[in-house]
C-alpha cells in the first residue's frame, strides 16, 4: 500500500538529511506504529506519505514514495486527498469550518462530489464514529476526544485507503485516548483501512499494532518489524514489556491481558514480599501550601467546589482526573491567577492572589501546559539572564540550573528550536531560579518521549529530595506510578480521593499503571520495584 524506496529527505538550509535511505513497505490493512524520539523525523516520515513533505514543507526528497500506485513526486497532497487521510497533532488547528457536519463535508466539497453522495457519506461517517448526536455542535465546544474523532471523520468522508495520524492521543486523558484508539482499531478491522500513526505513549497503542517502525533519528537507518521483535531490544518500552523482560517471558507480552495470563508464577514468587511504599523519603516536611474549602471558576459554574488540599515539602503530589475536572484551575488558584470566590488559599503563609508578581515567584512557580508561554527572548542565554534579573539572583544561576537539567544545549540557540523536553526544562530552570518552595507543573509529559520523561522523573525526585513540594497535574498513569508520593483525584470539582499512590491508583480501572493491573491483587507499581524485589529474593527460580 505504502512504499518507501531509498528515500532521503533534506530540508533546505540543513546539511544533514532528516531521514536517510529509508526503504519500507507497509501492506494493506495494517496498523503501523511509528516510534522514535522527539525530533527524530517521525513527523517527516508521516508527512512524506501524503506528499506534504516536500510539496508543502519544501526541501528535497530523493528516492520514491508510492501510495496506492501514486508517486508523491507527481501528486500534490491535494491530489492524494482521496487516497491518504492526514490528521495532524492538534485537531482544532486543522478545522476549517465551525460545525461538525460542515467539517465532515469539507473534504468532499473540495473534491467536487455530487450532493447526494456527500449527504449519504456524512450520515454514514456520523454513525461510524458515533458522532450523530454532535452533528450540529460547534467544534470548539467539543471535548478533546470528540474533536479528535471529528478530525478522523473529516478525512474519512473522502474514502481514503490510508489513514495517517500524528500523535492522536497525546493531549487526551486515558479514557478519551481509549475512545480514539478503539475507533481506529474498528476502522482497521471493519473497513480494512491501512493506519499509520506516531505515538510516544507506547503502552496505549503497541498492543493494537501489527508493525512497528523505529525511527532512531540522526540519519541512522529506519528499521521495522513485528511489535515483539522490535521491542525485544528497544531502549524504550512500555512497562508491560519491561516487566516481561524482568520476569524473562518469551515472547514478550504486549498487552495487560497477555501478561496477566502468564503472571501467576511471578505473583507466587512475589507473594509475601512488601512492595515499596513510594512515600516521601524522610517523611513529609512542613506545610508549604494549602487550600481549604476553595470554590473557584465562573460565577454561575464553579469549577472547584469546595476543595481542601495540603502540600508539604518533600512531597510529589500527582493531581489526576479527566479533562475539565478542575486540575488546571486548582494550579491556577495556587499561583493566584484565579481568585477563589470563597475559601482560603495560602502559599508560604500568604495569599498568592494578593502578592506582587515579583514576590510571588519566591513562593511558588508554575510551568504552564505550553512551556513556551514563559519564553520570549531570542536565545537561551538571554532567557536565562532575564530570569536571573527577574528573580534577583546572582547572574549565571539559571544557566547553571538549565545546564544541570538539560546538559549540552548551545546557549545561542533559539528557544523555538529546542525539543519539547528541552523547552520544558528551560521553563523549569527559569521557575526554579527563585528557589520557590512549591513547584507546580501542568501536564508536563505532553509531547515528551520516554527518554525525556525519564529525565523528568529524575529531576522531580531530585527536587523533592531537596525539600521542594511538587505538584503535577497529569494524565500519565505510568509517570504517576514512577514519581508520585501522593495522588489526589479530582472529579467534577471535588477531591474524590487523596492518599498514598498505592491506595489510590491500584484499584482504579482508569488510573492503575500496567504493572498494578498485571499483578493485582498485589500492589506493585513499576517494573523497577519488581526487579529490585526479585533481586532480593535469593532463590530465583525462573519459570
Amino acid at each position, binding site marked *: 500500500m505504502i512504499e518507501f524506496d531509498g528515500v532521503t529527505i533534506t530540508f533546505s538550509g540543513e546539511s544533514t538529511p532528516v531521514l536517510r535511505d529509508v526503504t519500507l513497505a507497509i501492506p494493506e490493512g495494517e496498523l503501523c506504529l511509528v516510534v522514535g524520539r522527539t525530533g527524530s523525523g517521525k513527523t517527516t516520515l508521516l*508527512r512524506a506519505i501524503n506528499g*506534504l513533505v516536500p*510539496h*508543502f514543507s519544501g526541501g528535497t526528497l530523493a528516492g520514491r514514495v508510492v501510495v496506492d500506485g501514486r508517486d508523491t513526486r507527481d501528486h*500534490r*497532497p*491535494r*491530489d*492524494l*486527498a*482521496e487516497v*491518504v487521510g*492526514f490528521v*495532524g*497533532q*492538534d485537531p482544532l*488547528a*486543522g*478545522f*476549517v469550518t*465551525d460545525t461538525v*457536519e*460542515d467539517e465532515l*463535508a*469539507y*473534504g*468532499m*466539497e*473540495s*473534491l*467536487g*462530489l*455530487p*450532493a447526494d453522495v*456527500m*449527504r449519504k457519506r*456524512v450520515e454514514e461517517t456520523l454513525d461510524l464514529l458515533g458522532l450523530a448526536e454532535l452533528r450540529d455542535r460547534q467544534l470548539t465546544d467539543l471535548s478533546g476526544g470528540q474533536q479528535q474523532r471529528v478530525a478522523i471523520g*473529516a*478525512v474519512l468522508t*473522502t474514502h481514503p485507503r490510508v489513514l495517517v495520524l500524528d500523535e492522536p492521543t497525546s493531549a487526551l486523558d486515558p479514557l478519551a485516548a481509549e475512545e480514539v484508539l478503539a475507533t481506529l482499531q474498528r476502522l482497521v478491522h471493519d473497513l480494512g483501512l491501512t493506519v499509520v500513526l506516531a505515538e510516544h505513549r507506547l503502552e496505549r497503542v503497541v498492543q493494537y499494532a501489527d508493525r512497528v517502525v523505529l525511527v532512531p533519528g540522526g540519519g541512522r537507518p529506519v528499521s521495522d518489524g513485528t511489535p515483539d521483535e522490535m521491542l525485544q531490544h528497544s531502549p524504550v518500552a512500555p512497562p508491560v514489556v519491561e516487566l516481561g523482560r524482568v520476569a524473562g517471558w518469551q515472547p514478550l507480552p504486549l498487552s495487560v491481558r497477555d501478561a496477566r495470563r502468564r503472571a501467576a508464577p511471578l505473583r507466587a514468587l512475589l507473594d509475601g514480599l512488601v512492595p515499596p511504599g513510594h512515600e516521601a523519603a524522610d517523611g513529609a516536611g512542613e506545610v508549604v501550601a494549602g487550600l481549604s474549602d476553595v470554590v473557584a471558576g465562573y460565577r454561575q459554574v464553579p469549577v472547584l467546589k469546595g476543595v481542601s488540599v495540603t502540600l508539604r515539602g518533600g512531597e510529589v503530589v500527582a493531581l489526576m482526573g479527566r479533562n475539565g475536572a478542575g486540575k488546571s484551575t486548582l494550579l*491556577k488558584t495556587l499561583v493566584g*491567577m484565579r481568585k477563589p470566590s470563597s475559601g482560603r488559599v495560602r502559599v508560604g503563609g500568604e495569599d498568592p492572589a494578593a502578592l*506582587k*508578581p*515579583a514576590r*510571588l*515567584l519566591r513562593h511558588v512557580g*508554575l510551568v*504552564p501546559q*505550553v512551556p*513556551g*508561554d*514563559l*519564553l*520570549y527572548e531570542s536565545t537561551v542565554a538571554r532567557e536565562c539572564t532575564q530570569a536571573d534579573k*527577574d*528573580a534577583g539572583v546572582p547572574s549565571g544561576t539559571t544557566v547553571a540550573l538549565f545546564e544541570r537539567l538539560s546538559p549540552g544545549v548551545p546557549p545561542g540557540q533559539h528557544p*523555538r528550536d529546542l525539543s519539547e523536553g528541552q523547552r520544558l526544562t528551560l521553563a523549569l530552570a527559569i*521557575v526554579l531560579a*527563585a528557589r520557590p518552595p512549591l513547584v507546580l507543573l501542568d501536564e508536563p509529559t505532553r509531547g515528551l518521549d520516554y527518554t525525556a520523561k525519564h529525565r523528568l522523573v529524575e529531576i522531580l525526585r531530585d527536587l523533592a529530595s531537596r525539600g521542594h513540594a511538587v505538584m503535577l497535574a497529569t494524565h500519565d498513569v505510568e509517570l504517576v506510578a514512577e514519581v508520585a508520593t501522593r495522588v489526589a483525584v479530582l472529579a467534577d470539582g471535588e477531591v474524590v480521593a487523596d492518599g498514598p499512590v498505592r491506595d489510590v491508583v491500584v484499584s482504579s480501572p482508569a488510573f492503575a499503571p500496567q504493572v498494578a493491573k498485571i499483578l493485582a491483587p498485589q500492589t506493585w507499581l513499576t517494573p523497577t520495584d519488581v526487579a529490585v524485589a526479585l533481586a532480593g529474593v535469593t532463590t530465583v527460580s525462573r519459570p
Partner: protein
Amino acid sequence: MRPQNLVTFPRILHPGAWWLWALGLAAAASRTLNPVPLLLILAVTGFVVAARRSDAAWAHSYGAFLKLALLIIAVRIVFQSLLSSGSQGPTVLFTLPEVPVAGSTGLKLGGVVSLEAVLRAFYEGLQLATILCCVGAANSLGSARRLLRSVPGALYEIGVAVVIALTFAPQLVTDAARVRAAHRLRGQSGGGLRALKRLAMPVLEGALDRSVELAAAMDSRGYGRTTDAGRVSRRLTGLLVFGGLLGVCVGVYGLLSGTSAGWLGMPALLTGSVLAAGGIYFGGRRTGRSQYRPDPWALPEWLVAGSGLVAAVTMFVTLAVDPAALVLASVTAVPPVPLLACLGIGVAALPAFLAPPLPRPAPAAPARTETVEVAA
C-alpha cells in the same frame, strides 16, 4: 408542494433573505428624517427579531446594536448642544456657560441651546440608529457565517479567508490572556512597551504555527484541487467580478444619495450587476467545487426578501409623489404621517409570521424499553 415552500415547515431561513429584508428597511430609513416612519422601522425590526431569532450566540447581538444606537442618539444630542452656534432656532431651552475658542474658527463651546438644534440632532441620530438596528436585526436573524457558506463559487476563497479570520481573532485574544498570565509567573507586573513586545512574540508565534498547520490540513484535504483554470480566464473572472462590484457600489451610492448625476444611479447599478453576475457565473464554472446541503431558497425566502423590498419601494415612491410627507418643513412642527410608506413598512413586519419557525432541538430519545424491563 416541497416542504421548503411551506411557511409552517420548521427550518432555518436562508440568511441572505434576512439580509436583503434588512437592507430594504435600511434603504427606506436612509431616505427620511421623519421620526414617524423611522420609529416604525425600529419597532418592526425589534418585533421580527423577537419572533424569529434563534438561541445561538450571535442571535443576541440585536440588544447590543440597540444599545449602540441609543448611545449614538445621546452622543449626537450632547455634542449638538455643546457646539450649537445658537442661530439654529428661536426657542431657547437653556443657556450653558460659554467657553470662547481662540481665533475666528466660528466654533464655540456652550452658550445658548435651542429646542430646534436638539430636535434636529435627535432626528438625525434616530436615522443613523435605525439603520444600525436594521444591520443588527439582520445579524441576529441570519448568521453571517452561514451567509458566507452561500457565497458564489467565484468568491469562495474570500469567504474561506473571512471564516478563518473569524475563528482566529478570538483565539488570539485567548492566547494573549494566557501568555500574559504566564508572564506574571516570571515576576513581571506587565505594562509598557516592553511588556507588549514580550507578549507579541509568543502570541504571534502561536498564530503562525496554527496558520501553517491549517494550511497543511486544507492542502491534504483537497483544497484548491479543482481550481486549475488558465491564467487568462482567472484574470478575466477577477476583473469582471471586481469591476461589477465596483459598479454596484457606485450605483447604490448614486441611488441612495439622491443628489448625484443621473447616470450614477440605476444605469451604473444595472451594468455593475450584469458584470458581477457574469464574473460570478464564469468563476463558479471554473471552481468545480460542490456544496454540501446548500441552504434552499424557496417561497418563504422570496416572501421575506420581498417584504423588505416593499418597504423600500413604497418609501421611494412616496419620495417621488409626496416629498412633503417625508421632509419636515420645520423641525418643531408635528411630523406628518406618510401613509403609503408606513403601510410598506408594516408589510416588512410580516416576516414575523411568514418566515418558517425555527426547528427546536429534538427531545432526548426515550430510554430503551429492554432496560426498563430488566430493571422492572
